[in-house]
């Protein structure tokens, strides 16, 4: 196992897999941070279950990407510097309060649910098989987080205020989900990945329904954050990676 950071030959397919995998691992890591801190035992297990679903999806995607790029899943997770991570900024932001944690799952899952559904018809059979597993998991994440958001928004004065603040804080990070660069376009043209533009209608409809039931107003069109897909991250990712990668960086190749 190499002891220093790895660099990858990012073919369009490898890059696409890393973008999906990094989203899943980073959000999974964030949700795992709630373990031992969640408001109730029931929600602690719900958050941990979602974290494990996402980390499981990431493992399958890393294993596939690694088989194409010549690395194993651990190397992809533990030996890439922040600039080599391809996740969207939305998933790397700190958890914030419970409302912000829940809202992030809503925004992300409302996109990933139709995305994985469409990917089950991918021309790439390995990716289609991963999508078939992930789609069921993310469908529940969406249902669970949406039910919570409805209760937070339509709950007490304080829960409404917190849900509203979360919406204002995270909304500018939602646009990155729909980005498609040349590499994405190559995957779309090859029938391997869905065009995110075609998922917009479903995402809009989901958000409109959930926000209305949560008595929350959809923020107006605003400038959208960008950069994660090309490795330009917030400072928060560095701290997260320090936590995630510490063991393999300090004790290269350590196993147990």
């Amino acid at each position, binding site marked *: 196992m190499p002891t220093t950071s790895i660099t990858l030959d990012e073919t369009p397919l490898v890059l696409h897999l890393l973008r999906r995998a990094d989203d899943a691992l980073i959000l999974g890591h964030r949700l795992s941070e709630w373990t031992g801190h969640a408001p*109730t*035992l*029931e*929600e602690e*297990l*719900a958050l941990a*279950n979602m974290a494990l679903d996402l980390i499981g999806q990431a493992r399958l995607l890393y294993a596939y990407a690694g088989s194409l790029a010549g690395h194993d899943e651990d190397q992809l997770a533990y030996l890439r510097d922040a600039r080599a991570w391809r996740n969207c900024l939305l998933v790397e932001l700190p958890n914030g309060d419970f409302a912000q944690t829940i809202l992030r799952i809503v925004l992300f899952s409302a996109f990933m649910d139709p995305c994985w559904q469409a990917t089950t018809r991918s021309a790439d059979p390995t990716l289609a098989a991963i999508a078939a597993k992930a789609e069921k998991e993310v469908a529940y994440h969406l*249902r*669970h987080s949406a*039910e*919570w958001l409805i*209760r937070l928004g339509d709950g007490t004065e304080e829960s409404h205020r917190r849900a509203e603040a979360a919406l204002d804080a995270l909304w500018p990070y939602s646009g990155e989900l729909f980005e498609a660069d040349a590499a994405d376009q190559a995957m779309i043209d090859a029938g391997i990945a869905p065009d995110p533009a075609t998922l917009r209608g479903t995402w809009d409809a989901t958000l409109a329904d959930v926000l209305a039931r949560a008595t929350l107003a959809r923020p107006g069109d605003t400038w959208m954050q960008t950069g994660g897909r090309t490795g330009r991250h917030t400072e928060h990712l560095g701290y997260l990676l320090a936590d995630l990668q510490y063991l393999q960086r300090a004790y290269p190749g350590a196993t147990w």
Partner: protein
Amino acid sequence: MPEVKTPLWEVFIRSRNGLAHKHVGSVHAADATLALQAARDVYTRRGEGLSVWVVPSSAITASDPADKDMLFEPTASKIYRHPTFYEVPEEVGNM
């Protein structure tokens, strides 16, 4: 009495088709929908179930433990209520 914001719900899980729902424990939740999700998240993590029921604990009427002797003790002597009490003649074969 203070308002209970997250009352208790009893959880029942059916592990396979054809079996009955079985009581497995309880969860706290604000309403039925969240109780069902909590039950799924807490009690079906290892493939335990195909179907989940939740029932408000307050909806259950329970016997008084103090009535145990009166309610259940008398049956102890009625061993003839068990099918194994009766000897089945050979000629009957398998029943």
